[in-house]
């Protein structure tokens, strides 16, 4: 069931259950208190009637009323109230209610609306007296003798109970007689039913309001989660620019939203970078393809001389070479990015490698009248000699390329602590401060033109190679005095 999986519904159900338990607890307690109050009120009424009966029982009337059935008084010393109990057969006791008390137990008397009645039995269950208004055929009343004869409670103890519509009070007197007092409990029961109904009604209304309030509260508490979920859905659909609206930054969900937002921002940046790289790569390929298309379409539009065809083919060759270089660089970068390019970890003669690179660049330098000064003492490097040679060649070629005519290039290497410092500096115009932070970015060129024959990936590849060796590459600009690229490499095997 989906409804039980929703946090909102589950919270609501739990909340409802707790509310029901609390309300039921309160309601039940209130009902019990009311019950006790009613019972106590009746019991007070019982008390003075009982006292009355006990008095009447132990102080028989005397005087001219001798024509009534006299109490069969036991001889002195054998009075039932002070004689030892359970000693021989109980004498039969005549009991007469004083005339002023007759109305108190009269069924129709106006001063007995509660229909108080009584039964007095002797210890062995013989009935001594009974008021006229004892209801007939009430088994609870008739089983009164069972209580004091069979259960044999301690003399002097009493019990109160509600049976059906009757409240009863049974007592075993110390003198041996048992008194049952009963009265109608119907009006009280009616009142208690009304109280129960009222409590249920009020509880129901409170429950209803509570549930509605709870629903609103849960809804508000859940709202940020729904916002987060809605935003996440949009993002998974491809719109990375979406952000969660963080209204309460301090709350737990607000913090979660902030964390998610910053994650989304980084994701977006990574995607944008990737997209930029792909688009730049495509862009770089467009120009050579344009050259080839235009060249071939022009050449094929009419008959050409052999020399013209040759020219076209040469232009196409140049464009193809450029594309080849670009594709190789892109693949290399992709491999370096993916960490697939395993760097060898070998000791090699760094100064010799640097010398080889200088020799490689010398023709280009000679062409531009640039002098290369070397400060290369014998230093051993550690890593992939071939890859590091690529870095050095690239730095040297850049230094020559972006130098002024008849400028100078300096290359130096030295061991400093556990690091090797390799620096290549030129005497060119330097890099503008605007371009400086971007020189290691892919396809970034200070010069917007694409005709330099460079791919715009050289420094990016160099950086990737140096970093794969656990080193760093930095650029230092001295305005007007040229640029220095410094490569710092670990001189020994690093603990990895």
């Amino acid at each position, binding site marked *: 069931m989906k409804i039980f999986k929703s946090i909102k519904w589950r919270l609501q159900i739990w909340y409802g259950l707790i509310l029901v338990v609390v309300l039921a607890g309160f309601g039940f307690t209130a009902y019990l208190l009311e019950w006790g109050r009613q019972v106590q009120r009746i019991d007070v009424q019982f008390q003075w009637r009982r006292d009355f009966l006990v008095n009447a029982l132990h102080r028989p009337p005397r005087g001219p009323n001798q024509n009534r059935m006299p109490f069969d008084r036991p001889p002195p010393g054998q009075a039932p109230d002070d004689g030892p109990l359970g000693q021989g057969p109980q004498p039969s006791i005549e009991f007469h209610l004083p005339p002023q008390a007759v109305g108190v137990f009269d069924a129709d008397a106006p001063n007995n609306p509660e229909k108080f009645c009584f039964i007095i039995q002797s210890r062995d269950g013989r009935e001594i007296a009974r008021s006229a208004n004892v209801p007939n055929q009430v088994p609870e009343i008739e089983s009164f003798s069972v209580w004091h004869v069979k259960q044999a409670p301690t003399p002097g103890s009493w019990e109160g109970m509600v049976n059906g519509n009757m409240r009863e009070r049974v007592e075993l007197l110390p003198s041996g007689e048992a008194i049952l007092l009963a009265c109608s409990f119907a009006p009280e029961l009616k009142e208690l039913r009304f109280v129960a109904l009222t409590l249920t009604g009020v509880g129901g209304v409170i429950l209803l309001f509570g549930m509605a309030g709870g629903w609103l509260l849960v809804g508000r508490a859940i709202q940020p989660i729904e916002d987060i979920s809605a935003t996440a859905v949009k993002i998974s659909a491809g719109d990375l620019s979406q952000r969660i609206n963080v209204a309460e930054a301090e709350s737990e969900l607000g913090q979660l939203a902030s964390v998610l937002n910053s994650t989304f921002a980084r994701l977006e940046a990574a995607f944008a970078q990737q997209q930029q790289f792909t688009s730049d790569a495509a862009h770089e390929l467009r*120009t050579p393809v344009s050259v080839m*298309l235009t060249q071939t379409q022009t050449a094929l539009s009419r008959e050409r001389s052999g020399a013209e065809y040759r020219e076209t083919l040469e232009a196409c060759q140049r464009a193809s070479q450029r594309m080849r270089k670009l594709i190789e660089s892109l693949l290399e970068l992709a491999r370096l990015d993916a960490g697939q390019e395993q760097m060898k970890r070998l000791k090699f003669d760094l100064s010799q490698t640097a010398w080889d690179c200088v020799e490689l660049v010398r023709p280009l330098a000679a062409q531009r009248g640039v002098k290369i000064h070397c400060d290369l003492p014998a230093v051993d490097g550690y890593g992939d000699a071939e890859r590091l040679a690529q870095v050095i060649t690239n730095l040297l070629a850049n230094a020559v390329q972006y130098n002024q005519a008849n400028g100078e290039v300096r290359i130096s290497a030295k061991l400093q602590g556990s690091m090797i410092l390799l620096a290549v500096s030129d005497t060119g115009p330097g890099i503008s401060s605007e371009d400086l932070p971007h020189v290691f970015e892919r396809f970034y060129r200070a010069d917007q*033109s694409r005709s330099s024959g460079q791919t715009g990936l050289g420094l990016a590849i160099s950086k990737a190679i140096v970093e794969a060796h656990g080193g760093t590459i930095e650029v230092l600009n001295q305005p007007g005095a040229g640029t220095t690229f410094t490569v710092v490499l670990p001189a020994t095997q690093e603990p990895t």
Partner: protein
Amino acid sequence: MRILIVEDEPDLLRSLAQALREEGYAVDTANNGEDGLFNAESYDYDAIVLDVMLPKLDGWEILSRLRKTKKTPVLMLTARDQSRDRVRGLDTGADDYMVKPFDLPELFARLRALIRRSANQTTNIIEIGNVKIDTAARNVTRADAPVELTAREYALVEFLALHRGEVVTRTQLYEHLFDENDSTLSNLLDVHVSNVRKKLGAEFITTRRGHGYCIEQ
């Protein structure tokens, strides 16, 4: 028709210039932004093919500076193909936009359309009396019979036809029919005019002495 190409990739520039010359255009070239802007401001080109990525001054800058003085139709040529780049190009004042790599026939068609629009012409066919000029096919018929014209003669007829009803000065004709590599001998234009008159009728082009030439409506 005289066209300026501003493009920094030398092979592309050379082949574009060659292709357009073979299409009968007079073509000037510039391989950087500064030269391009200088040329564009100095002559009334019929159209400019402008690359965006250029050394010294980029295409956007050239365009916005040029638009302060001239309404020359500009076709931007760029490797950037995102819609915001195209929007930027058109909003800066470019009349058309092509993404590299492009097809030459399409470039030609777009240039023809640019030139036609700048002359307030809606179709490729211009009819003057019984002479019909098809600027797309670059041919001319007179009373439904094809007329053989040299490229230069055709360019002269097309330019005058696009500006028919106006007097076109000799200077204008020189500027639009010859590029900076042509030797502009003063009588070269007269030779072309006289040849056209032989082929399309003496009254096709009228001479306004002291002003220039004109094709009547």
